[in-house]
Every structure is written in C-alpha cells, then in structure tokens.
C-alpha cells in the first residue's frame, strides 16, 4: 500500500530533489496497485518543492494521469518580526476550499521571494527567499494552510541540540503566532546513526513534544528521490548546490534513506521511533491516523481548487472595451477587413472567411483573447517599435484585420484551421516578433498598462546538458578544473546521457575515450554525467513569454523577481495551457532591430522615411541579389546550407522564399524533399500530382507535399472531414499507433468520394511518410517577409543595412565578415575617430554620393561606458587638450585610442605622425584639468605639433614600430577594419597555390583545390541518412566565405581539428550546385599557423643550404686560385 507522503521535493527543487514529478506519481500509483484492499482513489502524494511551486502543475497532471490525489506545498524559510531566522517549514495548501488554500500557498511563496532575507555566514552574506511568520499566519487564516514544524524548523533545530526547553518555547511561539489548527509537528527519521541528524532520537523527541503541546504529529520522510538508487544523484546535487566537492561537504546526506518509501517501510520507521521513546500505547496508530487525516485535508481538487484548464482573459475594461467582447470584436474586424482589402479583389472572400473564423471564436469564447493580443500589438506600435506576428496565427484573416499580423493569408494560401478550430483543445498561440533592443521597454509598458497583478513574465526550466553535467560531476569528484574543462570542451552537440556511446562512436573523441579507459576517475565522471543529464538545473526568465490574465493571476501562480527586475511566474510554458494562463510570445528579433536601425539611419541622412511594410514584394533587383547567393546578412537565408539551397532554387517571387525557408528544415531535409522539389521546379521531371483533384493543392510546390496546410487540404479533399478535423489527423500522423486508425478511415471515405485504390495507396504513402514533419506555411510566410525586407534593404541601401547588422548582430556571422562584405560591396568602414564615432554604427555621407560606416566607440576594448559617454557628450573636440580635459580618459584608454588612430584628427590625419602623438600622450604627467560640462575649454594648441628638429628625433614611441594598422586594430578593437587579418598570409598562399575564395565560382566541379582562411562558422545541419556532416565556413578576405563540407570519412581522417582549428589550410574538391552555387568537399585539413611555421623553417633550411652550396663553390674556386692572394674573395663571400 502507498503511504501519504506530505513532504516531497521533486527534481524541480533544483540542486536538491532529483526525481521528476511524473516518476514520483507513477511510483506512488505502483505501490498502491501492489497493495490489495485499498480503493485506488485513496492514494495521495504531495509535492513540496523548496522555495516554490516549480513542479506543481506537472505534479497535479501526473497525479491525474496516475489516478492519485495530489497535494501541494512548499518548503519555505521563515523569519520572525526581527528578521530572526526560524528555520524551514513545510507549508501545505488545504483542498476543497474553492481554491482558497492553493491561492494562499501561491501568495506565501511569492511573499517569501519578495521578502528575501540576507543571512550572514562564514562565506559572506547571501539573499535567500524567506517569509515573515506574521505574513504566513495571515495567509493561513480561514483554514487555508497547514504548517509542518519539522527537523529543519527552529523547533527541530533546538531538539537536535538537545535543548528541550528551547524547543517547547519555540513551539509555543508558533502556536501563539499561527491561527488555530494550522500547525502540526513533522516527525522525520532516516534511521541514521545515533547522534546524527535523522536518527530515531530527535524523531521520538518531536513526537513527544507534539503530545506535550497537544498538537497533531504527522510522519513524513522528507523525500528527495523516488528510489534508493537515486541517492547518488542527490549527493551530486548537494555538491553542485554548495559548489563543494563531495569529500569536503559540510553536511552530506547522513545516508540514502530519503526516498519515497512504501507504507511498510514507513511503518517500520514509525515502530522504531515510537519504541525509542516513552509514548502512549496508541502512539503509532495515532501518528498514522493524523498523517492520513492531514493528507485528506490537503487533497486538492484540480478543478475547483487549482482551476486546471480554465482559461482566464484580462477583464474587458483592461483591454479598453465596455460592451460585449464578441460584438466589439466583430465591429473592429469588419472595419479592419474593409481597410486592409480596400482596392483588392479579395474583399468578398475576406469577409466570408472572417464570418467563418468568427464562428469558431464565438464557439470557443476566445473574443477576449483576440482583443487582448490586438491591444498588445497596438501598444507596441504606439511605442514606435517594429512588430510582426509569426506562427499559425498568421493564417487568420481576423488577425490580419486587427493588424496583429501583417501577412495577407488568403492569397498566400494560409488556413485558419491550422491555428484554431473547435477540434483544437489547446489555447491558441500568437507569437509577436519585435525589435530585440526594445523588448524590455515593451514588457515594462505592458506591466504599466495592464497592472502587475495581471501580468507576469513566464519562466523556463534549464535542464542539465552535456557540458554543465560534466562540470558539476567533475566538481563533485573534486577533479582538477582544467581536466574537467578539457573533457567538457569536447562534449558538443550530443546529450550527456549518450556520452558513453559517443566515446565509442565519434572519431574526434578517440583520444578522450582512450583516457577514460585508463582512468577509474574519468570513468566515474562519465557515469555521473549521465545521471545529471536532463535534470532541471535552474529557472530563468523565458526569452519571450509574457502571461496576461485577470486579477486572479497571483492566486494561481507564485511569482519571483526575474533578472530584469520584473515579476516572473514559477511556471514554464508546459504549465500555461493546463493553468489556463494566456501566454503571448513577444520575441525580440535582432533583425527587426537591425532593420529599424537601417531605416532610422536612412531617415537621419536623407530625411526620407522608408515604410518596410509597404515596399513592393516583387522588386526584380532584390530577387537578383538573392539569386546571386550573396545573402550574407539576410534574414533566414544567410547560412552556408541556405546559400546553397537559394542558389539551386533561384527564387523569383515571394512565394518561392516561403517555400525555400520551409524546405530548409530537419523533416523535409531528411525526407529528401528539396531535391524532389528542385527537380520538378527546374523541369527535370514532370510534377507528379497523383490525381487531378490534388493538383490545385500541390501546384505551388510542384507536387511535393511541404506544408501542413497542404496535408490538411489533402485530408479534406480525400475524406470531406473539414479542415479542423484534418488538422487533428495531421498532428496524429506523427504518432505511429494512430496510423492504422487514420488509414482505415481515409480509405473508406476516399473510396466513397470517388478516388480509386491505386490513388489512395499512393497518397496515403505520401501522407504517412510526411509524418509530423513539414512546416506550417503560416510560419514560412511570416519568416519570408523579413527575409524579403532585409534583402530589399541590402539591395537598395547597403550602407545603412550593414550598419544595422553591425549594431544589432542579428545573424550567425561575426562582425569581421560583415566588415569584409561591406568592403566587397564598396561601402567603406571608417576607423574609430573621437570626433565622429558614437555608441552605435553610424552611417556617414561621403564624396561621390557614397556612404561609409563609422566604427563606434564600444568596439574599443577596455574603455569604460563612462568614458565613452563623455566622448559622445562633448564631441567635437577642438584640440587634444580639450579632449583630455573633457573626457578625462584613463591612460590605457587614451593610449589605445591613439594607437588605433582615433586621435588622428589632432595630427591632421597624418598617420605617419601617430608615434609622436603616442609618445606625447605617454609623456603627459599630472592630472587633466577637470572642466565642467557647461564650461568652455581652454583653446590651447598642444605642443605635439611643435615636435620638430634634430632634438626631437629621439622622441618617438617604439610601440608602433613594425606594426601595421591591421595589427593595431586587432590589438585594440578585436576587429580589423582597414585590412583583412588574412592579408599577412597572402605571400604564403601564393607560394602554396591556394585558390582565393572569390575564384571558386569560376572553377568546374571536381577540381582539386587548396583553400585557406579563418573559420567563421561551423554547422552540422540535418542531413538525409542521419550521418553527421560538418560545414566549415572559411574566410580568406577575398570574397564571400567558402564553405567546406567534411563527410564522415574526412572527419575520421582529421579528428579534432575539424572542430577546433581556427586558421586552416584545406585540401578538397569543388562541388557545383546550380549555376551560382559552389562548395568544397574537404579531404584534409591542416592548422595554418603550423603550415606557416613549417614553410618558414623550410625557407630557412633552403637558405642555409644555399649558403653552404655557395661556400663550397667558393672553396673550390679558392682552391683553384693561387694560394697567395685570397683577400679579394671576401667581398664575394660576404655577399
């Protein structure tokens, strides 16, 4: 029989509990079914995570699944009115109180996080969540909560010190402070050795204390794991939490007994506890009776107590409406359609579609939801921030009419049912992409507008992945930090639990595998790493989730302060739908910021405003640029794999971009869809529509099924089931056990609708093979819009566009490469200049109608924000003196600015005099004169211009000797703007016969080439066949990156350097992909710096050999000459 555990930490008590709620619930259910007599519904399990309800929703759902009653609580620290700590207690919510108990629990947890207490300790002070006892007492009123006073409470700690009087006094204080019937004593015994915490003695004393105080005593096991085998993992958690190796832990677990024991095990413990002290005869039975009684009291009803599955929208007045939300939505939507479709042929269709959509909205009662999202979109737009909807919501005319989305759904063939239908059980999801740089502003505005009792950020649970798991396991074992780091570095793109297998399979891990075989400790490390993998590690604010609800929000979710200072729910995205919480994904997209930056720079320079949402979507020049594969910097299509696909596909219209983006996904790639589509597109094969009735559905993709929408339409055409039902079928295609049922239904209905069996066989094969892969066309179209917009900017306004890219770094490529691209596009990147550089990449008008991009101040390594702020505030400067007085730069900053040329304006931009300037700055003594911001500077020329004459020949700075501008930039800017960092290797390249990247395009396929350059990116894209393929993008400064593909055999031959070499020389063969595409299949790879060294050594050896040859030649000459006169030969020898 199962035991009603009231104190259980799940794995969501990070670095403490180690078993997931689902496993705990299943274990309880299994213990229940192993017992015979009891009815199944009597089982009970509470989860009481530390400092929160992190695992609460998962627990309640798992209990429902397992058929047991859930309880919820939290293990919280408490302090008194003088902030004196009272230890930790378990706070349990009472059930069947119409949610009063659960609400009080949520508020208690939030309160603990709001009232963090600073505790001094030997290691300094740390803030931790703690609730005031008076606040807890307030919340526990009206029979809402029970507080368990256990071993970790002040009472329990006094018992541990054998201070019985102290324990009685403290318990009395609890009884005085708390409402009646809200306190119980918690008896915990882990059967540890006498004299240690968790032994029978303190447990039996706690029981006696409860009897003395006439309080109920309940038995718990203070559970940290489901099974005894998981105690090892809890040891690791302790080490990770305290950042201390296991061997040096202050308070390791006394033993491994804190597991979810069955009733028999708990009875055994209870017998020993009762036997160890002097108790009444029925003490044992009473302990069990009181435990069950409290469990019954704390059983929560998922519906009436937690409100599971009941959506709650913000109140009408909050979203600015007074009447019926549905009527209001109709009014706005009709007006929106009239406005959006004015002057198009689609007006009538749009109204019809709107009526269809509104029927579903009415049926589901989601009018408030749509108005809320539209209100948020309005708020964002009113802030002047770029916004774009993404996701299946883009398929809705309603969203388009409300201006929530900016992609027109009908002409793009998008479906409402992919987003919402009566058959869909989950809350709808509309994602809004906004400028990343403004995301926090938007959040704050939403909190201000809706009120922080209705809005909260969503959290996300970060789980252990390979590297973190290795590090923490290594820490626990007390291993050498460098050794652990070396192992962690090699864990790349696979899960820690697969480490053992990866060691056997992956060629680049060969050396590590050998080490592991030779070291017991490393072997143990591999074991422990696997134990930590996937365990929740910490929670943090979700990158885009915002929860919008009504005034009851804080009764349903506990909140804590996020890193950005705004309240964050303890629930993650999986908890939203069950909790009926409306979540909006407001995602910061850097490309939106980059484009906004470009538009703003263009407006600043020319006064002309570009409205990106109104540019024509059929600009020939833009498509020409895309087809050229010079897509670096363009949204979504700038990766090496995408460049290749764009080259093959040769997009001509907007829809081609949607198709291209949708094809470049794991599912389609693995199913070879790109090839099938390309063959049909370029006329190599006839499109195969299978049946004429499918042609309208499949025409846009030449017979290849790519989009979810197509699968839905096919289902509908075949069976007449309607698009809503069709979407349900589509989602079930991914579940193999559902396939026979779907197939039977489809065959029967299709035959009835006039399809013949061969057709049905073939289309079923396509649909079943499609699985859950593919892409919603709504997503593809929503992505294609910024793709097109960024391509348009790059085509027509390259300078401002690149400045946007450099400022907001939206893509995968490093700045060096964008700078190189600018150089190739004829946009000069201008050096740092204290007279002109600002905090962001600004564009400057140059002669001949050209524009250049000015490097901003933050690129200077080591300068402070305050220094940069003063430079910008006081620009321009009349003299070096003026600069020094107003900016007051630190010496290091001052010298760095001089070295890179940012102070060249003070020497008339005469670069040759920079060493004099630097020498002068280095010779400056005394502090700068401080000049108030509102004061004029001294107009004194610095004596730097008067350095002249023989006396000053010696005044120079050796720091600049032998260094090129590129060297200096790499030193102080970490970014070379005047030249390319590979330029110094060019003589070597020409000697070795390296092919410049810019020339690759002119070579036929299969040509053997040598390539060299600096690694700019490494990709392991999804591939057909499942074997890993590594793409390395090399930049040699001559043109676009060259992409080298390493297949499995090459990876084995090369090993680690495939991933680790920075500068490299590669031998391979060209591989053509269409007219514009070329890549190289890599066969071997060498570290370029080593190659350079070898060549240098060889040169030296050859030169030496030449000298030897020459010396022997001369010796021979000498021998031939008369021995009397050899002196005339010296000059020749020396030469």
């Amino acid at each position, binding site marked *: 029989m199962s035991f009603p555990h009231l104190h259980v930490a799940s794995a969501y008590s990070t670095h403490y509990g180690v078993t997931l709620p689902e496993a705990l619930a299943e274990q309880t259910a299994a213990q229940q079914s192993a017992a015979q007599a009891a009815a199944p519904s009597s089982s009970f399990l509470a989860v009481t995570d530390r400092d929160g309800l992190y695992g609460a929703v998962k627990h309640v759902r798992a209990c429902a699944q397992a058929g047991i009653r859930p309880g919820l609580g939290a293990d919280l620290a408490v302090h008194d009115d003088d902030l004196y700590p009272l230890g930790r207690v378990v706070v349990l919510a009472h059930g069947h109180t119409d949610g009063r108990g659960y609400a009080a629990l949520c508020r208690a947890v939030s309160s603990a996080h709001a009232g963090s207490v600073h505790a001094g300790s030997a290691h300094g002070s740390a803030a931790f969540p703690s609730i005031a006892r008076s606040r807890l007492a307030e919340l526990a009123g009206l029979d809402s909560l029970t507080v368990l006073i256990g071993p970790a409470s002040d009472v329990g700690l006094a018992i541990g010190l054998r201070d019985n009087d102290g324990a009685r006094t403290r318990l009395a204080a609890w009884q005085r402070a708390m409402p009646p019937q809200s306190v119980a004593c918690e008896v915990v015994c882990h059967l540890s050795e006498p004299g240690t915490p968790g032994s029978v003695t303190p447990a039996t004393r706690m029981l006696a204390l409860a009897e003395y105080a006439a309080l109920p005593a309940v038995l718990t096991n203070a559970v940290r794991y489901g099974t005894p*085998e998981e105690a090892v993992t809890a040891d690791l958690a302790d080490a990770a939490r305290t950042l201390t190796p296991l061997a040096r832990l202050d308070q390791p677990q006394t033993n491994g*007994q804190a597991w979810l024991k069955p009733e028999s095990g708990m009875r055994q413990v209870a017998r020993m506890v009762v036997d160890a002290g002097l108790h009444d005869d029925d003490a044992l039975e009473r302990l069990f009776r009181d435990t069950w009684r409290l469990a019954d009291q704390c059983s929560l009803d998922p519906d009436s107590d937690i409100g599971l599955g009941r959506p709650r929208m913000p109140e009408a007045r909050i979203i600015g409406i007074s009447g019926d939300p549905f009527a209001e939505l109709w009014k706005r939507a009709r007006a929106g359609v009239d406005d959006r479709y004015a002057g198009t042929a689609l007006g009538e269709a749009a109204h019809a579609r709107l009526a269809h959509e509104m029927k579903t909205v009415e049926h589901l009662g989601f009018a408030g939801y749509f108005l809320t999202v539209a209100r948020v979109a309005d708020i964002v737009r009113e802030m002047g921030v770029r916004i774009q909807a993404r996701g299946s919501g883009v398929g809705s005319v309603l969203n388009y009419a409300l201006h929530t989305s900016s992609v027109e759904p009908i002409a793009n063939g998008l479906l409402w049912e992919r987003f919402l239908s009566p058959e869909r059980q989950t809350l709808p999801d509309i994602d809004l992409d906004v400028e990343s740089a403004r995301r926090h502003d938007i959040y704050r505005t939403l909190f201000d507008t809706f009120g922080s009792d209705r809005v909260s950020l969503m959290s996300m649970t970060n789980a252990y992945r390979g590297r973190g798991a290795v590090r923490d396991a290594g820490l*626990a074992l007390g291993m050498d930090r460098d050794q652990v780091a070396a192992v962690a570095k090699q864990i790349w793109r696979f899960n820690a639990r697969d480490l053992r297998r990866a060691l056997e399979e992956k060629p680049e891990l060969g050396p590590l595998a050998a080490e592991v075989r030779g070291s*017991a400790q490393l072997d143990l490390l591999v074991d422990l790493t696997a134990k930590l993998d996937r365990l929740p590690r910490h929670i943090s604010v979700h990158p885009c989730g915002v929860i919008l609800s009504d005034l009851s929000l804080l009764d349903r979710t506990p909140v804590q302060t996020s890193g950005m200072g705004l309240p964050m729910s303890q629930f993650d995205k999986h908890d939203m739908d069950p909790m009926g919480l409306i979540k909006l994904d407001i995602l910061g997209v850097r490309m939106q910021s980059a484009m906004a930056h470009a538009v703003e720079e263009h407006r600043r320079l020319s006064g002309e405003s570009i409205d990106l949402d109104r540019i024509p979507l059929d600009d020939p020049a833009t498509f020409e640029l895309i087809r050229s594969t010079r897509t670096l910097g363009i949204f979504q299509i700038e990766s090496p794999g995408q460049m290749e696909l764009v080259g093959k596909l040769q997009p001509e219209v907007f829809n081609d971009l949607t198709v291209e983006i949708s094809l470049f996904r794991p599912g389609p790639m693995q199913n070879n869809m790109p090839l099938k589509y390309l063959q049909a597109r370029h006329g190599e094969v006839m499109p195969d529509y299978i049946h004429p009735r499918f042609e309208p559905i499949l025409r846009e993709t030449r017979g290849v099924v790519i989009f979810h929408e197509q699968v839905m339409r096919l289902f509908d055409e075949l069976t007449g089931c309607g698009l809503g039902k069709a979407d349900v079928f589509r989602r079930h295609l991914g579940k193999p056990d559902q396939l026979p049922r779907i197939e039977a239904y489809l065959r029967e209905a299709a035959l009835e609708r006039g399809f013949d069996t061969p057709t049905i066989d073939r289309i079923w094969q396509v649909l079943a093979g499609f699985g859950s892969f593919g892409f919603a066309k709504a997503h593809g179209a929503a992505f294609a819009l910024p793709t097109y917009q960024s391509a348009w900017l790059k085509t027509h306004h390259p300078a401002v566009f690149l400045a946007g890219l450099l400022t907001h770094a939206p893509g995968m490529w490093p700045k060096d490469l964008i700078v190189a691209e600018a150089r190739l596009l004829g946009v000069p990147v201008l050096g740092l200049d204290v007279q002109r550089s600002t905090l962001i990449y600004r564009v400057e008008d140059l002669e001949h109608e050209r524009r250049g991009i000015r490097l901003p101040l933050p690129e200077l390594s080591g300068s402070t924000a305050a220094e940069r702020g003063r430079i910008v505030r006081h620009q321009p400067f009349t003299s070096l003196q003026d600069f020094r007085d107003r900016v007051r730069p630190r010496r290091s900053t001052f010298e760095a600015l001089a070295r890179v040329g940012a102070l060249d304006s003070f020497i008339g931009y005469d670069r040759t005099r920079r060493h004099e300037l630097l020498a002068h700055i280095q010779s400056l003594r005394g502090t700068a004169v401080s000049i108030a911001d509102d004061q004029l500077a001294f107009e004194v020329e610095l004596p730097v211009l008067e350095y002249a004459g023989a006396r000053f020949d010696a005044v120079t700075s050796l720091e600049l000797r032998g260094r090129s501008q590129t060297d200096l930039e790499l030193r102080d800017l970490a970014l070379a703007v005047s030249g390319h960092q590979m330029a110094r290797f060019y003589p070597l390249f020409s000697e070795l016969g390296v092919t410049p990247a810019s020339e690759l395009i002119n070579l036929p396929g299969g040509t053997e080439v040598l390539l060299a350059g600096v690694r700019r990116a490494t990709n392991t894209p999804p591939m057909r066949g499942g074997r890993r393929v590594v793409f390395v993008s090399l930049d040699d400064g001559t043109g676009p990156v060259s992409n080298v593909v390493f297949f499995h055999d090459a990876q084995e031959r090369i090993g680690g350097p495939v991933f680790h070499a920075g500068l490299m020389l590669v031998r391979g063969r060209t591989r053509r992909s269409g007219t514009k595409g070329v890549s190289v299949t890599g066969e071997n790879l060498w570290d370029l710096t080593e190659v350079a060294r070898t060549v240098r050594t060889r040169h030296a050896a050859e030169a030496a050999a030449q000298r030897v040859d020459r010396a022997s030649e001369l010796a021979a000459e000498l021998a031939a000459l008369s021995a009397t006169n050899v002196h005339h030969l010296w000059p020749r020898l020396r030469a």
Partner: protein
Amino acid sequence: MPQIIDTPVDVELSADGDPRAFIWNRFEHTIIGQPQAVFTRTSWWENARTPARIDTELWRVDASRGDEEQHRYDLRRDVDGSWVLALDWG
C-alpha cells in the same frame, strides 16, 4: 569490546519486514523487542564504480539462543538481500 563475527547467516523476517530470528552455527537466535535499523553512508566516490546504494544497512538486535543470556548483535543486509552477522557486542 565487540567481537567481529562477519559470517553469512539466514535471517527470518516478521510479516512487518523486521528481522525476527537468525540462524548462526545451526542455532536459532530469537530477536527480542523492537530491533533498530541504522543506515550508514559510504564515501562511494573513492571507489571506481557508482554504487546502487550510498549506505549500508545494519540492524542492531537483542537476541538469545534458547534460554541463554541475550546478546546484542549487528546484522548487515547487503544490496543483494543476503545477511551477514557482523558483530557480537556481548
């Protein structure tokens, strides 16, 4: 001083799962009163393998052979379920 025995024994369990008697040297030793279990932890990280358990299960029992004077014993239960009579405390 306790005497180290360290020999495998057969243990009879009660319906509750507590040891009720053990057979040592062919003689049955009957356990008197409530036996107490103690779990002591190990420093498993010093060994080469990850253990299934991090603690050792010991039962401290009072038992007597027939009518002889009762002794206090430590019984150890290993992970595989087998019992070892570890100590005789006298």
